[in-house]
């Protein structure tokens, strides 16, 4: 069993205790709500985008556990000032780090095995080999790398990913909220 220190790293607890960009933005900011129906956690993402497709402002509302809240806080800090395209790429990188392969059903007969292998790798001492994220090192992951250990606690992956999925929904709604 992985030790709790793998999950509750100091930087994660710091984001949990001192969440960045906490609050809300008034309309016409884009707003999306994400729910985890299994546990009741909820995340609200507010953001504004300028004419150059750069995320100008972002705010995070809602309630949740240390992992979902710290991931949301880190996400907000990581995407603020980036373009929409960069934010999408970062989201994909993050999900990849969380062993989430979004290949269509049937495209990979061994997908389940790959995920199992990635989780087994995550369970080993070398946390750097997770799901290919380490093969294309990207300094932009910054603090987010601290969430790597979540993969060793599969039940918590959905906590870590909730805010990122909600970010994607907020970005998808930008045309409506301008």
């Amino acid at each position, binding site marked *: 069993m992985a030790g709790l220190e793998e999950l509750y790293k100091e930087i994660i607890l710091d984001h949990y205790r001192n969440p960045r960009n906490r609050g809300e933005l008034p309309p016409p900011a884009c707003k999306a709500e994400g729910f985890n129906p299994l546990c009741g*956690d909820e995340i609200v993402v507010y953001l504004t985008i300028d004419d150059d497709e750069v995320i100008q402002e972002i705010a995070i509302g809602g309630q949740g556990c240390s*992992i979902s809240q710290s991931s949301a806080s880190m996400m907000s800090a990581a995407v603020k000032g980036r373009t929409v395209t960069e934010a999408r790429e970062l989201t994909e990188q993050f999900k990849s780090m969380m062993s989430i392969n979004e290949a269509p059903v049937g495209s990979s007969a061994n997908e389940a095995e790959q995920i199992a292998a990635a989780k087994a790798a995550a369970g080993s001492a070398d946390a750097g080999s997770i799901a290919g994220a380490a093969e294309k090192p990207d300094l932009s992951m910054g603090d987010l790398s601290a969430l790597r250990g979540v993969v060793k606690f599969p039940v*918590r992956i959905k*906590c870590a990913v909730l805010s990122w999925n909600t970010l994607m929904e907020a970005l998808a709604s930008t045309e409506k909220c301008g």
Partner: protein
Amino acid sequence: MSLDIAQIKGDFPMLARQINGKRLVYLDSAATAQKPAAVIEAVDNYYRNAYASVNRGAYQIAAEATDLVDGARSAVARFIGAPQVHEVIFTRNATEAMNLFAQSWGRANLSEGDVVVLTEMEHHANIVPWHMLREAIGIDIRWIPITTDGQLDLTDLDLLLDGAKVVSVTAMSNVLGTLNPIRRIADAAHAAGAVMIADASQYVPHLPTNVTELGVDAMIFTGHKMLGPTGVGALWGKTELLEAMPPFLGGGDMIMQVTKEGFTTNDLPHKFEAGTPAIAEIIGLGAAVEYLEGLGMEAVREHEVSLTAYALRTLNERFGDDITVHGPAEPAARGGVLSIAYKGVHPHDISQVLDQSNVCVRAGHHCAKPLMQVMGVNATARASLYVYNDEADVDALADALESADDIFGMEI
């Protein structure tokens, strides 16, 4: 006579399991209960020695399988004090049982504007089927409120029941542990001309149950919370109520006659048991009932009241104001369901920390989101007790809870 809990623990193979050299402390029986060897062996015996379908084949093993299912139905009927065995309808679980009742009785007896009365502490299984009826035929739903200590507030009961057609109430809350005054509500419902159904999913496994004394017209419960297998639950209903209800699912077994023009329904209980039933699971449930009868439900309840009192006292002594146990403070007014708030640490994080000590508790909304809203929380961490738990399990919970401080500190 008090129970020998060490001996009872020995009847449950799962409780002998060790993880990382430490024993399992299973405190999630409100979600699902562990299984005694007697249940596992009954299922195994059916598959090995008596496997055949039921209610048809003329050959010997088919007759044996049918006898096993009939015996299980008799055992369940006896266990809940059902006046007649055919009043026990096997379903997939309690959820399906409530859907059966809502769809069959509801569609036959309710129309637009008719009133259904629920409480704020219901499980989604006793909410969503009524929401579905509301969307389909436009019924109204009224809610019996709860007090700050997690009891039903019956101050305006007569007003809420005025004009109601059906009242559907949990006998014991799966979040708060509250034991509700089913008899009183049933009497008031009947005085108002309404039908009364109880969700006894958390009640039947833990207390002596008699449907006549409870005064209900119908009741649902599930097998896996009362030491039986998953995949089997039950609806009990009074004969005249069930006979007046149209069938729910159509297919094999539930018919008397089928022609190209139509069909007629079979007698109870088969009328509501379309298709091949969960034979092995029903047989396992029968074995679970016999196991509980062997212990005696009075003794089971006595043990749980005493262990709940110990748990409330221990948590209060060790954590004082840092801990809140939701629901009634008086052990006799509740079951062994302890929903905990601890120092603002999120329930997910609590359950994660407890898991390091193999202490299994549930974190989340417990399929009771309206109740969570009333309580003003998103989730709770819930430890729930059963007949195989003892004071050492409660101590293990308290010890593991202390270790949450090491990670989350006092300031959160």
